[in-house]
């Protein structure tokens, strides 16, 4: 009984390792084929535009408007406050 089982285990070792190597080799060459095909036919990936940081967002507002808002805040808070974020509604 044990001899039969050892023979079965040896069979599993050979079949199992061959299958695992075969499948991963296929996966590797499939990956290479995909990369080759996509490189050939698909357009190059465009890098997504980064979101504009807050500081730049403030800069994008008209300088005159920003100066008026800053002056108003300064007057209201006695020079202690400042605008950290300005968004259009």
């Amino acid at each position, binding site marked *: 009984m044990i001899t039969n089982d050892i023979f079965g285990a040896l069979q599993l070792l050979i079949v199992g*390792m061959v299958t*695992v190597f075969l499948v991963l080799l296929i*996966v590797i060459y499939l990956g290479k084929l995909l990369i080759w095909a996509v490189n050939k036919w698909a357009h190059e990936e465009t890098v997504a535009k980064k979101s504009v940081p807050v500081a730049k967002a403030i800069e994008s507002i008209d300088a005159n408007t920003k100066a008026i808002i800053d002056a108003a805040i300064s007057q209201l808070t006695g020079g202690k406050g400042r605008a950290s974020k300005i968004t259009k509604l």
Partner: protein
Amino acid sequence: MTAFSDIIASNGTYLIMYLLAFVLLYLGIVKHFEPLLLIPIAFGVLIANFPGGDMGVYQADEAGRIVDASGKVLAENIWEMSLPQIAHDLGLMNFLYYMLIKTGFLPPVIFMGVGALTDFGPMLRNLRLSIFGAAAQMGIFAVLIIAVASGQFNIKEAASLGIIGGADGPTAIFTTIKLAPHLLAPIAIAAYSYMALVPVIIPLVVKMLCSEKELKINMKEQDKLYPSGQKMKNEKIIKIIFPIAVTTIVALLVPSAVSLIGMLMFGNLLKEIGSDTSRLFDTISNSIMNTATVFLGLCVGATMTVQAFLNWTTIGIVVGGFFAFGLSIASGIIMVKITNLFSKKKINPLIGATGLSAVPMASRVCNEISTKYDPKNHVLNYCMSSNVSGVIGSAVAAGVLIYRYVLKISFQLFLVDFGVDLGARPQGHSELWPKRLSQKMPKSNKNNGR
């Protein structure tokens, strides 16, 4: 009325189980060893071992018969019982176990979540290194032979023990449910414990097999010296097509691995598609995976009752599991060494050591080892390649082990349905054919080895 009289009468066996539960809880809570799994498992162990609590899982024999420790028959044939009947007669935990675990439902669901959290990018960028994910499966089959030769395990039990070497919890559970469900608890505990001990086991094996010169091999410098030809112009498209293509190929070659690989790749596909499927991705990687983990942990823990756990087989599994793990790491390293003999472009042997699936812990540990020898030598991305391919490799290995038995029986059933006389009842997995075979075939007198 209380549980004290049974606990006292048990000669301390229940106390051993409580101690084990407390140790596992300590490892999970204080030492942070795989807390997401060890804590539910440990709590499952605790609640399953209070006499009269009805929270322990009963394992049915081949005919579906369930007998308790005192010899009382609790169910004549559980495969013919409805789920509400199981809940009523055997308790809540048996209802959950037979519905979620025994059907093999939860491991593929967890694989789906794992797929959603896996990035195949490093693997696609270093495809050549993926082959070491195959080499590292050697431990599974080596321990299978050793376990059979020891005479303590039959071949199905040995296969379930060997799969611990794949270092993949859901795969180990899935294989064990199919081949040796009565060993589910010790195998799940051993698999997750050794995965938690990856930071100890990998350095130990690496120290035994690798020289300092080998560990200092700088992969980035090797890439500069011998650049690989292919660069990816559009990684997003490749990453979307890859899971679909791999599922199709694996399904054709090893159909029994589809439940694991298919779900892994489905989860990954939802991740890679992006905003169109972001809601599904969010659900499978959080809500579904977390729910599955809770029930898997509790049910596995609840299978660890005094009767099922305190025996020599469990000790054999703990020892064998360690060897399976160690041999898997060693075989990956040896494969790298052999490759280095024939290749100009040298590979750091740590990349072979990460061929088992414990993602991403194995890669992180190997990166720490390499930076210890050379602070500028970061191998994480390269290790991730073999590490991720190891997930595919261990699922395929499990598929081969399951295919060997379950499909063989399916074929026998097919023959029986068409009136072919097989002479005797095929061995194992009687739950798959309780009515048809009992009507059509004589029962075999052969000992099934359990």
